[in-house]
């Protein structure tokens, strides 16, 4: 009984955290975009435009759901749900604090990557199901991009697994010390290329979440709106929310693997607040990057992955293996 109440409370808390994040990251992004371009961003709906996400949500929900005539109906209908489910599900393995983790299990990292791939698949389903050539092109692009960037990401993750000897996310955090030089980014005793490894992982998570400069799946200039061109109302809203959920997950994973999760950089009061600070800092970096760089070409995107990220992560893998064996 006690366990049930705990479970319900946690689920409620997680849903609230997720909902608020999905709504307000949009606000953060628009504010950030505005100020970077020396505008103000949303400011009229509520103080500092804080009620803007609510207004947007209401507007999206009040829209009629139209299904295009030559859409593949079941696929079209299930794609937004399919993209949202793994995005929400992945929060099950994220350790927010030492004891604030929904389900601590051995294969947290594997589970993360497994479900993250479903996200790419649902983008393809959405693109295919829309019965629109732009959506289809966008879907295939997104998938080839996801595949290309999953490789260096996984290799980098293997580094961490080799260092910690565990795939349990909480264990990975626990093994990184409570001072910032003990975090995986700066653990030069394990491999001198660790900061590069962090960079590779960061770039890959940018690409995996389909964000600028790698947002080839939804480049407005060429493909209308990419794989969600044909979606209106809350269907589009779900795609949008899933993008932000993936953003939160990507940043959480980077925080856990490289930045010491809930550990404090100076050994003081470790806890969920440190996790959140690091995560939101990374999210801010994502927003910052999005409004700084133009979109890459598809050639540039794949070139970066195959010619730079994969060799570097492979070299890093070898170095790590060597360091572990020698020292």
């Amino acid at each position, binding site marked *: 009984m006690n366990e049930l109440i705990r479970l319900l409370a946690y689920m409620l808390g997680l849903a609230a955290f997720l909902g608020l994040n999905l709504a307000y990251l949009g606000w953060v992004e628009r504010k*950030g975009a505005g100020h970077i371009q020396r*505008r103000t961003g949303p400011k009229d709906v509520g103080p500092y435009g804080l009620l803007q996400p609510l207004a947007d949500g209401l507007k999206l929900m009040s829209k009629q759901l139209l299904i295009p005539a030559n859409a593949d109906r079941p696929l079209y209908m299930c794609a937004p749900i399919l993209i949202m489910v793994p995005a929400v599900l992945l929060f099950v393995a994220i350790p927010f604090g030492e004891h604030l983790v929904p389900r601590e299990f051995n294969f947290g990292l594997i589970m993360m990557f497994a479900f993250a791939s479903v996200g790419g698949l649902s983008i393809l389903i959405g693109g295919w199901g829309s019965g629109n050539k732009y959506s289809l092109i966008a879907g295939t692009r997104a998938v080839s991009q996801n595949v290309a960037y999953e490789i260096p990401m996984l290799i980098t993750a293997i580094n961490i697994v080799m260092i910690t000897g565990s795939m349990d996310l909480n264990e990975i955090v626990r093994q990184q010390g409570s001072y910032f030089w003990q975090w995986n980014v700066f653990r030069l005793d394990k491999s001198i290329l660790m900061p590069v490894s962090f960079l590779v992982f960061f770039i890959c998570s940018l690409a995996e979440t389909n964000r600028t400069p790698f947002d080839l799946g939804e480049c407005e200039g060429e493909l209308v709106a990419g794989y969600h061109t044909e979606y209106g109302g809350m269907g589009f809203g779900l795609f949008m929310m899933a993008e932000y959920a993936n953003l939160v997950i990507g940043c959480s994973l980077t925080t856990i693997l490289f930045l010491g999760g809930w550990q404090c950089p100076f050994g003081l009061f470790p806890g969920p607040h440190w996790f959140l600070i690091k995560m939101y800092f990374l999210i801010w970096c994502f927003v*910052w990057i999005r409004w*700084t*760089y133009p979109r890459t070409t598809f050639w540039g995107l794949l070139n970066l992955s195959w010619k*730079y990220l994969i060799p570097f992560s492979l070299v890093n893998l070898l170095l790590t293996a060597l360091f572990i064996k020698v020292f």
Partner: protein
Amino acid sequence: MSGYIKDIITGLKSLVVGLQITNKEFLTKPITLQYPHQSVKMYPRYRGHIELLKDTETGTHRCITCGMCEKGCPSGSITVKSEKRPGVKGKVLTAYILNFTTCSLCGQCVENCKPEAIGFSNEYNLASTRREDYIFDLLQRLHPEGVPEPEVDPELLKKELEKKEAAKKEGAAKKEPAKKAPAKEGGASKAEEKS
């Protein structure tokens, strides 16, 4: 291989430079004008709809109702209404109607205006749901509190009255005075033609 490494280094450097620029812009104040809350200060040469200019000496417009603007308007947007008043030199403008719905802001009227009575306004906040709102009486817009009566020159009034009397007598001699008003008007216009 050296090109490869060089690419990475220059690439990363340029990325950092880009981030620095956006960060700097992020920290500076927004330069956008919050339009409905603030409004733009228009430049004097902005071409809004035309308006009657206020003469600083007389405190009213300089229009002599010659109608050159009306004639010059390619879209026929201007109607100048005037009348002769007793004791006032020249005609008196009673209404200057601009149909802004057909105006193309070409400025022919302003070019044609000899006494420089009309000019472009700086008005740009024009929005309405009704067409009638764009038929402006520029005289009303110049004097929203009420159009001031033109000054009556007593000497001129005297002269005019004398002329009128003379015309009346002449008219009476020719015909019987059936209607007074048309006779008066006719007299006035005649008087004006002479002057």
